[in-house]
Structure formats: structure tokens, C-alpha cells
């Protein structure tokens, strides 16, 4: 037999533009199901707000205990200036903490895999460190770093450092062992195996760490503001509002924080999905 004969086997999956389009019926069904998937969270949100508003109306509860969504919306509008300026502080802290914590976590994971002996020593310490309630460290961070943004960024960094380290460390160690064998026979150094094989293979795990970090970072920043004597930020504004029984302002801050976190998560999720696709060779 010749080489010509053996090239004709069909590929398992073809994603080229010459592939015939999938049948119409299943794709239409898929589109409608994704539409339902997209609508579901919105419907749930509308439902929660409706129940909340209904309860406030029906019970006649005082706005100083539980303001209705209508009052919160009004406060969002009337206090937009002060909320926005404080939100910017928190957003800056979250983004800085996210960047710093991700970078430090990634560097740690790479270092621990590059020096496995060090990894075996350090990883248990890192796991043990998770027993420390980081929120209790906030006053200490203020003493070390001051009342400004630095101590809040440090808190966000601390909170996301371990999830990123653990996720990437795991991913780097889960590279296909057959691929590592092959690289060894090819005469690759451990550093080049790390760079050319372990890191690309660990991109999805890194994405998982990023997703976790995105959820934790705002929590870290806001708690840092609560505990750390902040002079700005949504956490600071919430404390202030709470002290003055402006519960509607507190809720408005919460709404802004939640919306920001969800938007940030959606963005990071796209990045993580892109990392998954790169590692899987999808284009």
C-alpha cells in the first residue's frame, strides 16, 4: 500500500470552514436553550426583588430596618456621587489586589514546581496558613501599611494568594506524564519542560484560580475597609451608613459591589475560557 491510501481517513472532529453546517433542528434547539439559560438568572433576580418589595409593602416594615428596592434605587440615584467616588476606591483596591495576588500566587506555584524539594517543604506550610483567619490580620496590616489603600490591597492579595497558588501548582503537576517522558527522552531540561509543556498544560487550572480570586478579591478589599479603619471605599461608606442608620445607602453600596463583582467575574470567566481553549488547541 502507498502513502496515498493512508491519508484518506476522515478526521474525528473538523472545525474547518469547509465542514458542512450542522443540521438546523438541533442548533435551533441549542439556541433556544441557551436563551433560556441566559434569561434564568434575570428571572430569578426579578423574582427576588419582587418578593423583597412585596414583603416591605405587605409588612409595612420601617425603612430603617429594611428598605424596599424602590428606596434603594432612589438612594442609588440621589447619592450617586458619593457612591461612585467610594466605589472607585474599592474597585482600584480589588484590581490591584487581584493583579498582585495572581502574580505572587503564580510565581509561587512556578517556583514550587521548579524546585520540587522546596515545594514539598513549603506547600504544607501554605495549606496550614489557611487556618489563619486573615480578617483578624487586618488591624496588623493597618499598623504595617497605614490606613490608606495599601493595607486593603494587601488584604485582597492575601485572600487570593493561596487559591491561585494551589490551583496553578496542581495544574503544573498534572501535565500528561507521557508528554513529560517524551520531553525527557528528547533531552529537555526541567526548566524547558516547565516553560514549553507544564505551563501551557496548566492554563485551565490557572483559569480556575483566577475565577476563585475574582470572587474573593472584593470580599478581601471590603473587609479590609471595614476592619482596617478606611477613609474611603464602599466598605467605609457602608460602615458610615450603618452608623447613621442609613440602611438604604448600605443596600445601595451592596448592590454596586455585587454588580461590579458579577461584571468582573464575567470578564475573568471569558479570559479563563480563552485559556481553556488555548490549552485544548481550539481556535
Amino acid at each position: 500500500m502507498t502513502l496515498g491510501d493512508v491519508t484518506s481517513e476522515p478526521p474525528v472532529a473538523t472545525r474547518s470552514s469547509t465542514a458542512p453546517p450542522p443540521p438546523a433542528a438541533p442548533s435551533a434547539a441549542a439556541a433556544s436553550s441557551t436563551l433560556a439559560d441566559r434569561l434564568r438568572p434575570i428571572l430569578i433576580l426579578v423574582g427576588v426583588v419582587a418578593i423583597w418589595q412585596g414583603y416591605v409593602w405587605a409588612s409595612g416594615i420601617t425603612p430603617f430596618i429594611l428598605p424596599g428596592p424602590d428606596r434603594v434605587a432612589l438612594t442609588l440615584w440621589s447619592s450617586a456621587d458619593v457612591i461612585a467616588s467610594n466605589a472607585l476606591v474599592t474597585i482600584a483596591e480589588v484590581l490591584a489586589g487581584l493583579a498582585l495576588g495572581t502574580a505572587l500566587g503564580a510565581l509561587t506555584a512556578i517556583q514550587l514546581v521548579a524546585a520540587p524539594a522546596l515545594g514539598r517543604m513549603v506547600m504544607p506550610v501554605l495549606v496550614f496558613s489557611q487556618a489563619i483567619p486573615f480578617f483578624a490580620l487586618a488591624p496588623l496590616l493597618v499598623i504595617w501599611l497605614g490606613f490608606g489603600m495599601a493595607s486593603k490591597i494587601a488584604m485582597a492579595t492575601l485572600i487570593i494568594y493561596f487559591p491561585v497558588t494551589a490551583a496553578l501548582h496542581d495544574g503544573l503537576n498534572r501535565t500528561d506524564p507521557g508528554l513529560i517522558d517524551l520531553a525527557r527522552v528528547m533531552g529537555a531540561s526541567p526548566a524547558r519542560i516547565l516553560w514549553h509543556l507544564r505551563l501551557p498544560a496548566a492554563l485551565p487550572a490557572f483559569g480556575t484560580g483566577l475565577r476563585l480570586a475574582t470572587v474573593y478579591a472584593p470580599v478581601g478589599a471590603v473587609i479590609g475597609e471595614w476592619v482596617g479603619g478606611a477613609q474611603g471605599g464602599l466598605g467605609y461608606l457602608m460602615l458610615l451608613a450603618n452608623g447613621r442608620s442609613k440602611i438604604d445607602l448600605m443596600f445601595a453600596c451592596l448592590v454596586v459591589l455585587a454588580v461590579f463583582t458579577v461584571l468582573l467575574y464575567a470578564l475573568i470567566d471569558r479570559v479563563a475560557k480563552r485559556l481553556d481553549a488555548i490549552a485544548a488547541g481550539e481556535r
Partner: protein
Amino acid sequence: MRLATAPGLAIRGRLVFPDGSSSAPLDLPVPGGRWTALLGPSGVGKSTLLRLTAGLPAGGSLDGAITADDGQPVDGRVAWMGQTDQLAPWLDVIGNVTLGARLRGARPDRDRARAMIARVGLAGRERATPRELSGGQRQRVALARTLMEARPIVLLDEPFSALDARTRAEMQELAHEVLAGATVLMVTHEPGEAARLGDAVYLMAETGLAAMAVPAGAPVRDLADTAVLEAQAALWHALRRPTEAPGPRRAAGQGAPA
């Protein structure tokens, strides 16, 4: 490139397993430029032997030596093909074929890579990623990657076992064609594969290593050939009951013919 200069190997010694047990003394001659098939049931240590030859961490060590008959070290002259294609999913075909160069910090020779890809019948698919290829095509890329390494000794660890029968037959023929001149040691658990491809066939069992009768004619042999079928059946019987193997020369331990 390699041709007549490919060295033969001599693998001698006992396999020592982590639990302290060891195999019978083994003496496996691997003639230069030929295909040697190492047949045996799972768990008998044939993959361990192959990994040790490749210098890879293995589930055991060799109390003995692996030497090349030209006196040069074996290390650095070996290419490896495993049970799966072991392609990096994030690299396209040409990226996978040139992986070795990049892993050694060398500049990849893309023109040569294209030639190797064409040689395994994948010309035009250089930019495809592994997920866009069939199992057989992926194994072809692995073969092109092995060729790209241009090592005189090629170790195959059940390289076609994950393929369907037709693709496996095609890959056996292609591999035999493009690896001509190299010293090939192939571990397999398939009697048909050994009978089809082996210039020499060894059966590895708990009792040691036995040189088996090889059908007449040069590989790749026709599986429909009566002699090949008989050899396959004999290997199959020997594999099932290694101590009562009919026919073949018994060569357990030191007495293996070179």
C-alpha cells in the same frame, strides 16, 4: 541520516522491582538496524525494561547494563513513541513535530519538519491542531516527530495499541517504512504485531526471556500468509502458557542466541 550506522543494543541483567523482588536474568540482544519485538503479558516488566533503556524513571531498576555495540553511550541517541500519541493539544502539527528542538533550546528546522510531515502523509495539515485530527492522523504526527529527532535507536511502547485494526495495520506499514535503518525495539502485547514486524521476537514472562521463532520473509509480513498466521498462533499460545510453549527455541536466561 541513520541507515547502516544504527548501533545494536545489548540489555543484560535482572530487573529489580521496588518490593525487592527481581526478574530472572535477562539477555536481550537488539541487532542494529532491525526491528526487535518484545512480547509479553502486562505486568511482566517489559515496559520497565523499555523505560530503563530510554533513561526514563521506571517501576524498577536494572541490575546489569544496557550497552550499544559501537561502544558509545545509549543516552541521547534514543527516540521514544508511547501508547498514546502524546501530542501537545495546544500546538499545531508543525509545532508538535518541532517540539524536540524547542525543548532543547534549538531553532526548529521548519522545512525539515514539513518534509517529515509530508513523509507520513499529512502534507497540508501542518497548521491543524491535534483535536482536528483522527487517532490515526495523530499517531502519524507522533511518527513524524520521532523521525524529526533523527535518533538511531527508536523505542516503541505499544505504539499502535490504541488504534483500530485497519489504522493499526496502516501505521505498522508506515512506521516500518519510514524507520528503515533504525534500531527499533518494540514492546507489544499483540502476537500478530510481533509476527508481522519483528526481525527478532522475544517473549518475556515471569520465567525469563525466550527467543521465539520468526516467520520467513522480511517484515512487514502479510498477516494472511500461512507461515505468519502459524507464528502468530505459536506466539499466542506461548503468551498464554509461557512454560509450555510449543515449537520455539527456549532461551530463558543466559542462553539466548545473539
